[in-house]
């Protein structure tokens, strides 16, 4: 089994510093967060430029070249609702460390992002939803099947669609947690890759609680077969849990210093 893939989520335009950096094309804040996340062990970095309706393509190109140029062609997830921006980003993307990830498609309005990934030999995050959160796993798996078939018709490898069950918040949807975990097991049993915004589960919880809940969630999800997650890699407890689960699953070979690697 391959090592769990962490996608660092901290280059996100919801952060005022990152938003300002994108608005003014100021590299410092972006490079700082990229470095922090890579030092903490992230594999991929997510680059969320927001809707970027005016200058999306130009902005995404700038961001891709900036981050890959400074960090040895680190692989990236291109995260925006602006399709032209994703395509522009891929046009300057260096694949030597991994394919680009299109973040994201769903089984509704954003289905065409699968076409975009297929046309550009990219990985795509496929949200098992057509808008609202799926009512149950029958619905989740129907969306999964539809997107899988669509991708394969377009010539994609099944493993290039990373299915996202959509993690849901415990405070309000506690009764749905096991269902999400069961969906991951179903993806895994089909030999599919999976990912998701894992920390959704701890939304609204006190700051000191979130790393604990996220760590428990990632451990249970990895047991179910989750192959990747979009996370804050600077959360040390979470990263230690992921590395430990990778050892227990045989994804990496144990050495006493495994947490340093």
């Amino acid at each position, binding site marked *: 089994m391959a090592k769990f893939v962490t996608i660092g989520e901290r280059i996100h335009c919801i952060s005022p510093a990152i938003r300002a950096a994108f608005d003014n094309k100021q590299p410092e804040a972006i490079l700082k967060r990229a470095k922090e996340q890579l030092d903490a062990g992230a594999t991929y970095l997510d680059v969320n430029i927001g809707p970027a309706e005016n200058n999306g393509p130009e902005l995404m190109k700038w961001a891709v070249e900036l981050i890959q140029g400074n960090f040895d062609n680190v692989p990236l997830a291109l995260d925006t609702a602006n399709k032209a921006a994703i395509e522009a980003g891929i046009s300057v993307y260096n694949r030597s460390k991994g394919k680009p990830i299109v973040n994201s498609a769903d089984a509704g309005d954003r289905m065409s992002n699968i076409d975009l990934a297929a046309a550009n030999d990219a990985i795509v995050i496929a949200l098992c939803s057509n808008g609202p959160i799926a009512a149950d796993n029958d619905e989740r798996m129907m969306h999964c099947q539809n997107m899988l078939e669509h991708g394969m018709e377009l010539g994609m490898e099944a493993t290039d669609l990373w299915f996202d069950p959509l993690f849901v918040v415990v405070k309000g949807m506690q009764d749905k947690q096991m269902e999400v975990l069961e969906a991951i097991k179903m993806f895994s049993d089909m030999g599919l890759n999976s990912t998701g915004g894992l920390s959704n589960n701890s939304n609204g919880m006190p700051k000191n609680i979130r790393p604990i809940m996220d760590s428990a969630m990632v451990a249970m999800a990895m047991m179910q077969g989750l192959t990747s997650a979009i996370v804050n890699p600077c959360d040390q407890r979470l990263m230690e849990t992921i590395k430990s689960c990778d050892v227990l699953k045989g994804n990496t*070979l144990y*050495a*006493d*210093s495994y947490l*340093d*690697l």
Partner: protein
Amino acid sequence: MPFNRKAHKFSASIGTVEIGTGDKAIKLGGENVMPFYTFDGSMGDGPKVGVEITDLGLDAEPQGVKDYYAGCTSFADIAKKAEAMPGGDFVVLRLAGGDPNGANKSTEELVAIAKEVSDAISCPLVVEGSKNVEKDAELLPKVAQALEGKNVLLMSAKEENYKAIGAAAALAYNQKVGAESAVDINLAKQLNVVMTQLGVSAQSIVMNTGSAAAGYGFDYTISTFDRVRAAALGQDDKMLQMPIITPVASETWSVKESTAEESDAPEFWGPVEERGIAMEVETAVACLVSASDAVILKHPKSVATISEFIKSLM
């Protein structure tokens, strides 16, 4: 249905470590396939063969080895003859006499021998210590210092003495260092981690993950090789992508199959020297087809045979 050949390709590869200087320098490692799967990818420059000599002279050596070195009166003579052995790529000086429980030669005496050997040859040199961790922690840094500029491989740094040997060999004197673990894959990885944390670059480390004569717990040696390579190539584990060197002669020539005189052995065993060569060759072949990027041998017939074996599979 027609047969479709599928290459067993990996996106990872074993690192390359260069030892020696000038035209005769060699590169260990560099492969990105299972051993000798040249039809699937690259084997780098291919496995190499080392010719072992020791500071203890020739008295205890098998007849064929004595005959080969006949007429040599100094370590320099022996070293030159070892370098000239057909099929050998590098010379290995094993400082077995340094063992405090054996001949207990002084560090000064052993360093002088290492210098004499090094000065006599132009091919790459590997210097093995006495196997005593305290003695080697003192001896190998001195050897590293004396042979500065020769780009030698010093064996071995172990869990107990890697700081002294790694710091001196690789950091202070820019030599290469062997990381030795005894059929313990987790320790093999850990040693590489702590050596790199010490500042030794991955391109300066060669692993000895353990060795044994065929039939003497050898299956553990092989399963360790298998697991090291599975992690290095299959999981792209950077901390296990160092090339592997395996001392063979020092293991195989001491077991009873190689030493029992004909009069003491079962009738069908045959001449003692033939058995010794067979043990050395069989063990080396099994190591090479499992992972080893270099094997250390001593009998001229074994060296010629293994060298031919490698050439015919490359």
